[in-house]
C-alpha cells in the first residue's frame, strides 16, 4: 500500500479501532475446536479426583470409612478432613471474611457438601471409589427458610463460630446471623414516610438461581517437589487473586506458584471464588507427586458451587400524590447458605446494593441488610452482575411499578417524573454514590417512541375490555424497566478483596517490526477481550488491531490484576490499556521528532503516524518509530517501546438503559409469550458495537431464564429440588425471544476513552422488564406483586388466585 496517497478513511479503517465491528480473533480457534479449556489439558501421569458428597442438608458426621475406596485398584489416595487438618487446610477463608470447610469434619451443612476426595488413575475409577466411601450420619433438623433462621429454637448451623458475637462485618445477633449492614439516613427517611401522602410496601423476593456457565468449574494442579513449585490451571475469573491467596494459605512463595486460566467456557460470576475442588486437587498433587485434575459435573456445579441472589427485599416508597418520590426504605433478608462465600469487595457485605435508589432522585433513603446462614450451598456471587446490583435494580424497578399502580399513573410517566435530570450529573445519591453521567429522559423517550408505547397501551386496554366481555382469554403486559448500573470496582480506596486493592492493569510492548503483545490483569470468559483491547490499542497508537496480540490469564506473564467480573474489565483494564498506550505515544513522539529533525512540540499524532504540524507529507508511521526505538533511539533515550499501567479508577462507571417488554399471556395455560423486547443501552463510548449487541443478547437471554423459570429450590429437609438440566430452566433457541437492540451514548467523564462497560446491563435491566410485564398483564385483575419465577404453572396459579380461572 502507498502510505502517502492512502486516504485518511482508508488508514482509519485499516486500524480496526474504536467503534469498528471487528470480527473476533478468538473465533478462529473456537470454531475449529482448537480452544484450550481446562479439561482439554493432559499431563504425563495425571490423576483424577472426585468427591464423595453429603446426601443430607444437615447432619452430624459420626464416622467416615474410606477402606473400601482405598482398596479399589487404581486409587492412590483418599483425602478427608482428618488428612487436611494437620496441614491447616480443612478450612479455608472465603472472600467474604468467613471460613468454609474444604472437607466436612464433624458436620455437613448442605446437600452436596464435600466430604472426601478420591484420587485415582482415571475418572471412572475415582467415581467408582467415591461411591464406596461409607459415612455414618446423625441427621439434624435442616434450616431452609431464611425467615426462620433467627427464630428462637432454630437449629444452630455453624457450631464452629456459634459463640462469636462479632463477625467480619460487625455484631452478630444470633448464631445463624452473619451481619447487619446499614446505610442511609434513618431519621430523615422515617420523617419522609411520616409526612408522605402515599406509601407502598411490598416483600419483593429474588429467588436463588445459579450462573451456570456451560463449562463447569475445574482445575489441574501440578506440584513439582524438586523445584518446590506449584502450577494450577483452572477456571479462574481472577487468576492473580487465586495465586496470592494460594501463597498465603499454602506457604509456597508467590513466585513459585504459577496460576494459569486458559480458555474459559463462560463464568458469569460462578468462577470468581475458590472451591474445595481446587484446594483438594492441589493437596492431592502434593501428596501423590503427580498432576491431579478435578472436573465437577453439572449436578455438582448447580448444587455445590456458588449460587446467586436469594434476596428477600421488603421495600417501601414514600411519594406525593402528584407522583414525586420522597423516600425509600428497604430491609433485605439475605440467604447466604451454609458459609458466607459471597464474592463482594470485602468492605461491602451486601455488595453495591445501595444503588437501589436506581435512576430516581430520592431525597432520602435508608437500607438495612441482614445476612443469615441456612442449610444450602454457599455463594451469593455476582451472577452477571456487579455485586447485588441485579437485586437492587429488580427491587426498585418492581417497586416503581407498584407505586405507579397505586397512584394510577403510567409506569413510564412515573419514571419520567422522577428521573435524575441531565444537569444534575455528577449526581450524589442519597445512599452515597456519585453517578458519573447520564441522560435518562432522552433514553426513555427514545425507547417509548421506538416501540410506539401509547399505541401499545391502547391495545392493552382494548384487550382487557375484550377479556372482561369474555371474548378472549389472552391478556397483554407491557414491562418497563429503566436501570442504572454501578460497575468497575475499584476505586481501591473503597474496594478490595481480602485486602487486595481493586485496580487493574495493562502491559504493552511494541516489537521492533511494529507488532504488539499486550497483557492485562483481567481474564475473558467469552467477553472478547482479545478482540476489543486490541481495538483500543489500534486507536490509541495507530497500529492495526490485527498486529496486536492480547494475552491474559497467565500470572507469570500478565501484570497483576483483579480479574473479570462485575463488568469491571472495560472500566479498569481498558482504561489501563489506554493509559499505557499514552505513555508509549509520548516516547514515540520524541522519536518521531528526532527522525523528522524537528522539535517534539512541532509534531502531532494523526491516526497511524506522527507528522510535522502543517506539513502532512512529512511523517513517520508507528512502524518506523518502533524500529527506531530499538535500533537507533535518539541520544539520551533508552531503547525499547513499551509501557505498563496500573489503573486505579477515580470512580465507578454508571451504565444505564431503557428496556421494554411486550408479552401476551394465555390465562388458560399460563403460557407467556414475549412478543417484542426492546433494549436501549447506554454504555458510554462503544468499543465494538457487534460485541456489545452480542453481550446484550446473551444477558437478556439469561434474564429471561431467571424471570420466567429458573430457581434452585430446596425442600424442607434440605434436598436440592432440581440441580440438573432436567429441572433447572435453561431456555433453548425455541423459547428464547428475539431481541431488538438500540443505544444512546453518554460517555463517562472520568474514563480515558469514555467507556462504561456493558456485559451485565442486560441481566440487570432485563429481569425487571420481564417481571414487570407479567405483573402488568395481571394488574387489571388486581395483582400487585407476583413473585418470580414466572413459569406457566405459577402464572396460572396467580391468575387463579385472582379469580380469573372461571
Amino acid at each position, binding site marked *: 500500500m502507498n502510505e502517502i496517497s492512502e486516504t485518511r478513511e482508508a488508514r482509519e479503517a485499516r486500524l480496526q479501532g474504536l467503534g469498528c465491528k471487528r470480527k473476533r480473533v478468538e473465533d478462529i480457534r473456537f*470454531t475449529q475446536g482448537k480452544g484450550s479449556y481446562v479439561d482439554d489439558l493432559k499431563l504425563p501421569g495425571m490423576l483424577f479426583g472426585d468427591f464423595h458428597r453429603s446426601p443430607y442438608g444437615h447432619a452430624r458426621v459420626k464416622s467416615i470409612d474410606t477402606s473400601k475406596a482405598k482398596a479399589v485398584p487404581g486409587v492412590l489416595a483418599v483425602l478427608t478432613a482428618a488428612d487436611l487438618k494437620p496441614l491447616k487446610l480443612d478450612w479455608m477463608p472465603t472472600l467474604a471474611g468467613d471460613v468454609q470447610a474444604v472437607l466436612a469434619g464433624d458436620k455437613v451443612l448442605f446437600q452436596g457438601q464435600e466430604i472426601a476426595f478420591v484420587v485415582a488413575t482415571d475418572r471412572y475409577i475415582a467415581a467408582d471409589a467415591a461411591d464406596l466411601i461409607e459415612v455414618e450420619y446423625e441427621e439434624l433438623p435442616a434450616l431452609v427458610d431464611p425467615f426462620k433462621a433467627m427464630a428462637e429454637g432454630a437449629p444452630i448451623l455453624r457450631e464452629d463460630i456459634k459463640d462469636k458475637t462479632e463477625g467480619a462485618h460487625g455484631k452478630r445477633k444470633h448464631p445463624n446471623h452473619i451481619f447487619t449492614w446499614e446505610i442511609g439516613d434513618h431519621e430523615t427517611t422515617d420523617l419522609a414516610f411520616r409526612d408522605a401522602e402515599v406509601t407502598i410496601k411490598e416483600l419483593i423476593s429474588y429467588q436463588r438461581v445459579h450462573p451456570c456457565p456451560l463449562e463447569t468449574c475445574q482445575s489441574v494442579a501440578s506440584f513439582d517437589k524438586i523445584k518446590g513449585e506449584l502450577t494450577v490451571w483452572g477456571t479462574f475469573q481472577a487468576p492473580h487473586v487465586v495465586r496470592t491467596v494460594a501463597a498465603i494459605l499454602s506457604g509456597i512463595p508467590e513466585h513459585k506458584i504459577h496460576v494459569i486460566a486458559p480458555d474459559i467456557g463462560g463464568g458469569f460470576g460462578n468462577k470468581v471464588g475458590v472451591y474445595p475442588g481446587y484446594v483438594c486437587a492441589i493437596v492431592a498433587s502434593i501428596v501423590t507427586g503427580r498432576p491431579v485434575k478435578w472436573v465437577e459435573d453439572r449436578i455438582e456445579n448447580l448444587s455445590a458451587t456458588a449460587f446467586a441472589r436469594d434476596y428477600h427485599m421488603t421495600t417501601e416508597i414514600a411519594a406525593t400524590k402528584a407522583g414525586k418520590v420522597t423516600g425509600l426504605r428497604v430491609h433485605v433478608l439475605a440467604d447466604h447458605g451454609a458459609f458466607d462465600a459471597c464474592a463482594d469487595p470485602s468492605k461491602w457485605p451486601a455488595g453495591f446494593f445501595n444503588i437501589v435508589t436506581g435512576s430516581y432522585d430520592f431525597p432520602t433513603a435508608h437500607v438495612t441488610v441482614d445476612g443469615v446462614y441456612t442449610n444450602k450451598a454457599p455463594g451469593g456471587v455476582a451472577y452477571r452482575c456487579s455485586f447485588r446490583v441485579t437485586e437492587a435494580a429488580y427491587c426498585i424497578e418492581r417497586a416503581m411499578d407498584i407505586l405507579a399502580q397505586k397512584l394510577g399513573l403510567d409506569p413510564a410517566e412515573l419514571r419520567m417524573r422522577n428521573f435524575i435530570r441531565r444537569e444534575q450529573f455528577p449526581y450524589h445519591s442519597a445512599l452515597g454514590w456519585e453517578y458519573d453521567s447520564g441522560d435518562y429522559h432522552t433514553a426513555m423517550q427514545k425507547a417509548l417512541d421506538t416501540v410506539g408505547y401509547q399505541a401499545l397501551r391502547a391495545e392493552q386496554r382494548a384487550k382487557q375490555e375484550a377479556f372482561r366481555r369474555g371474548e378472549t382469554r389472552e391478556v397483554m403486559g407491557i414491562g418497563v424497566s429503566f436501570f442504572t448500573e454501578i460497575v468497575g470496582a475499584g476505586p481501591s480506596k473503597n474496594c478490595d478483596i481480602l485486602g487486595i486493592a481493586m485496580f487493574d492493569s495493562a502491559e504493552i510492548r511494541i516489537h521492533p517490526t511494529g507488532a504488539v503483545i499486550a497483557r492485562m490483569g483481567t481474564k475473558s470468559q467469552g467477553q472478547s477481550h482479545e478482540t476489543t483491547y486490541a481495538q483500543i490499542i489500534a486507536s490509541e497508537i495507530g497500529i492495526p488491531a490485527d498486529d496486536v496480540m492480547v494475552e491474559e490469564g497467565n500470572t507469570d506473564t500478565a501484570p497483576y490484576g483483579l480479574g473479570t467480573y462485575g463488568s469491571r474489565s472495560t472500566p479498569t483494564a481498558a482504561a489501563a490499556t489506554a493509559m499505557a498506550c499514552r505513555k508509549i505515544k509520548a516516547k514515540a513522539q520524541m522519536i518521531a521528532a528526532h527522525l523528522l529533525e524537528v522539535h517534539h512540540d512541532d509534531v502531532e499524532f494523526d491516526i497511524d503516524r506522527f507528522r510535522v504540524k502543517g506539513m502532512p507529507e512529512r511523517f513517520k508511521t508507528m512502524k518506523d518509530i518502533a524500529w527506531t526505538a530499538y535500533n537507533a533511539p535518539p541520544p539520551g533515550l533508552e531503547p525499547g517501546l513499551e509501557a505498563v499501567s496500573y489503573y486505579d479508577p477515580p470512580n465507578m462507571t454508571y451504565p444505564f438503559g431503557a428496556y421494554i417488554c411486550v408479552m401476551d399471556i394465555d390465562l388458560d395455560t399460563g403460557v407467556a409469550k414475549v412478543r417484542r423486547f426492546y433494549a436501549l443501552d447506554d454504555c458510554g463510548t462503544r468499543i465494538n458495537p457487534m460485541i456489545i449487541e452480542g453481550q446484550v443478547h446473551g444477558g437478556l437471554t439469561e434474564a429471561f431464564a431467571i424471570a420466567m423459570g429458573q430457581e434452585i429450590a430446596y425442600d424442607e429437609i434440605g434436598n436440592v429440588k432440581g440441580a440438573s438440566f432436567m429441572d433447572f430452566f435453561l431456555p433453548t433457541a425455541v423459547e428464547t425471544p428475539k431481541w431488538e437492540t438500540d443505544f444512546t451514548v453518554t460517555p463517562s467523564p472520568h474514563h480515558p476513552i469514555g467507556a462504561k462497560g456493558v456485559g451485565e446491563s442486560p441481566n440487570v435491566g432485563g429481569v425487571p422488564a420481564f417481571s414487570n410485564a407479567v405483573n402488568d398483564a395481571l394488574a387489571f385483575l388486581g395483582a400487585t406483586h407476583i413473585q418470580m419465577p414466572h413459569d406457566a404453572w405459577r402464572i396460572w396459579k396467580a391468575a387463579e388466585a385472582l379469580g380469573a380461572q372461571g
Partner: protein
Amino acid sequence: MAKTAIALTVNGEAVEALVEPRTLLVHFLREQLNLTGTHIGCDTTHCGACTVDFDGRSVKSCTLFAVQAEGAEIRTIEGMAGADGTLHPLQEGFREMHGLQCGFCTPGMIMRAYRLLQENPRPTEDEIRTGMAGNLCRCTGYQNIVRAIQFAAAKIAGDSLQEAAE
C-alpha cells in the same frame, strides 16, 4: 476392566482402539483420540456441547458408549475445515455473524447445524430454532447462531455473500 476392540472411522481416518465397555464415546474421542474440540457441558444429554455427526445423524456423544461406535463413521469439529485449512461455511458463518462468545457450545452447535443443513438445506428461522433446540448456549441468546446458520445455508447454496449476510 476388560477392554473391547473397536474399529471405526473418525474424520475420514480409520481408527482401531481398545476401550472399556463403559467408556462413553465423548471420553473416547477426547481422551483416547485427543479430539478435545468435542465438549462436555452436562451429564444428562441436554446441553449438546458433545454433539458429533454419527452415521449421518446428530448424536450427543455423552449418551453413547464407545463400543456402540463399532463400524461407525464419525465426524467431529476437527473434521470440518478442509485439508487446506479452508473453513466450512458454518465455521465462517459463526464468526461472521458473531454466533459465539465463550466458544464452549460452538463445536456442538456447528456439528448439529451441519446435519440440520444436510436434512434441510434452506431452513426457515423457525426450522433452525427447532432444529437447534437440543443445543444450549449461555452466552449468545441464539439470535446470532440463527444468523450464522442462515449465512452458511446461503453460502452453501451459492447465494451472493450480500444475501448471505442478510
